């Protein structure tokens, strides 16, 4: 996967480049719109990551110019602006995505995956999900572990489903809130942790290998090995 990262802040660019490379992406970076355009024309990229506040032009303008040149790769917009611009909303409806700074790396990776997955068959059509000895029946909305039925509430099932779909990958609290509860909120109470804690009590019973792991300061991961 080739990414084009357009970010003028050198500090952010360097850590993004490092962590994206570590996550298996091939990253090209530009610090302004002119260079970004040059790189985008020179070779194809699977996703463009564009910061809105570029020194020589507005990020949106860059995206529109690239679209005009026939470059249709999906774009992940990074915005340090507080209010989401109407034009960003427009792009979002067109299939692109945005992320406000500061963000968790896990969230950036999740959004990149969503953008690149766009053209692939969706895993949501699966009727069964397997992670190690955990099995989710998507039709009957039942979960079993090692053949034993887990007694989950609909909301707990939805949470476990989300973790399973992202097995082996870190998910943050705000990702869980957005994907499972459909809200972009950041409560300053521990609501998500308590949900995870309860779910863990049902999934990781005594004597079994713990599957749901907490990565402190980052989020949670459902182990797939």
């Amino acid at each position, binding site marked *: 996967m080739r990414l084009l990262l357009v970010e003028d802040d050198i500090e952010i660019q360097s850590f993004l480049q490092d962590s994206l490379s*570590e996550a298996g992406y091939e990253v090209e970076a530009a610090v302004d719109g002119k260079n970004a355009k040059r790189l985008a024309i020179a070779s194809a990229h699977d996703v463009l990551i564009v910061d809105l506040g570029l020194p020589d032009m507005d990020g949106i303008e860059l995206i529109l110019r690239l679209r005009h040149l026939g470059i249709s790769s999906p774009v992940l917009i990074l915005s340090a*602006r507080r*209010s989401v611009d109407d034009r960003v909303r427009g792009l979002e409806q067109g299939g692109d995505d945005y992320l406000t700074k500061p963000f968790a*790396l896990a969230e950036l990776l999740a959004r990149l995956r969503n953008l690149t997955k766009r053209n692939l068959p969706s895993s949501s059509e699966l009727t069964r999900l397997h992670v190690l000895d955990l099995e989710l029946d998507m039709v009957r909305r039942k979960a079993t572990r090692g053949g034993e039925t887990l007694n989950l509430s609909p909301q707990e099932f939805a949470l476990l489903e989300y973790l399973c779909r992202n097995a082996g990958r870190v998910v943050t609290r705000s990702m869980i809130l957005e994907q499972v509860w459909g*809200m972009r909120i950041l*409560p*300053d109470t521990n*609501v998500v942790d308590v949900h995870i804690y309860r779910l863990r009590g049902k999934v990781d019973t005594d004597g079994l290998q713990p599957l749901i792991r907490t990565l402190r300061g980052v989020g949670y991961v459902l182990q797939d090995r």
Partner: protein
Amino acid sequence: MWSAAWRISLWATLAFALGTMLVFLFLHRFVADDVQRRSDAWLSGEVEVLGDVAERTPKDALYDRVVKEVAELATKEVPNRLRTNSGQNDSVFFLQTADDGSLRLWVGTGDGRSNLIAIRASGIVPDTPSDLHVRGFEIPFRVASIRLDDGTHIYLGLSERDELQLLRNLRLRFLLLWLSIVILGFAIVFYSTRRMLGNVQRIAEAASRIGQSDLSSRVPRTGHDDEISQLALTLNHMLDRIERSMHQLHTITDSLAHDLRSPLTAIRGKLEMSLSAPSKGEQTESIVSAVEELDHITEFLNQSLDVAEGQADALKLHRREIDLEQLLRVMIDLYEPSMSEKKIRMELHSEGAARILADPGLIHRMIANLFDNELKHLPASCMVAIRLRNEAGAVVLTFEDDGPGFASEVALHVFERRVRGPDSSGHGLGLAFVEVVVRAHGGRVTACNRKEGGAQLSVSLPLASGTRSPN
């Protein structure tokens, strides 16, 4: 607008009508006096001539005939004479009394007795004409008299009918003219006032529309260079300034956010990378808490800026239809584990779907703040009753608990920024945020301590029009 146009044109018309009426009354009076003076002059002149004739005519058998003839001739020269229906002359009479006061000569309609009775009763003074009411005649006579040397009196009476008829015609014509002028005047004043006030109304409507939503549009100009146009111009200047300051505020908050966010992003990224690097051992704990602190700062920054913008009425809303009841059920589901961990029970009392047109992001965070508020401040084993009901075009959402309530020193200020209870751990923005979001949506929020004990927070938001559906 209608009532103002009505009032203005009504008063103007009333003043005009009264003024013209007064002028007419003076004119009428003047005309009436003049007519009377003329008929009095005629009467006096004629009665003198008649007296002269009566005195010079020898008192023989022909006396009566001669005087009568002359009197009849005189009565035919009546000024302002109008035709009567009967064709006979009943507007003038001539009467001569003998020296004993009995009727001697009579020219006129009827036999003259009632005239004589009336003359005796009124005691007419010679040489000055005066009014005489005669039985059988509705309209009084104007009577002039003269005393002859032989002790007889001559009376010449002229009915005031013609005079009154003249005045009545005058009045009637004036009234018709007056009415049409008043009605026309009213119509003109009403029309122009309404047009003028219509312009004011349009300006008011535009201003209120601008105040509610779009600061970039402007009040319409009338096209004339008058006071109304001046008002529009002034308002537009004001709007220009407001828009500029609003824009400045956005720029300031945006650049502040931008300037803080970029370093925060870099710091957070680096911290995360060092977390994922192996063998950090004992440092992990401090890095984790640094990341958590950083997230707190970010959220604090977001809410501060939202509250600041909201308090300046500058929050941007992207409205969509939201069912508050459904949202509450999801929220209760989200908060239930945390609440039950503190042994706090929640109850939802709802009348069914409550659809509002609102910004989902802001409303979600606002409701989450209400739940967070209960979660953070309620002691264990309390109870929260969440009520949702429709009330006169609004959705009223109430959070009632049986906890300790608001501390008395903050009770009045819970919606102000940075106000928090004495043992609160929050940053004091939660309820301020609730207030600005609710206000930005045209709603109201109140907080009080319940009589039964515990706190009550009530949020009322305008219902999306015509979407109430029973559950």
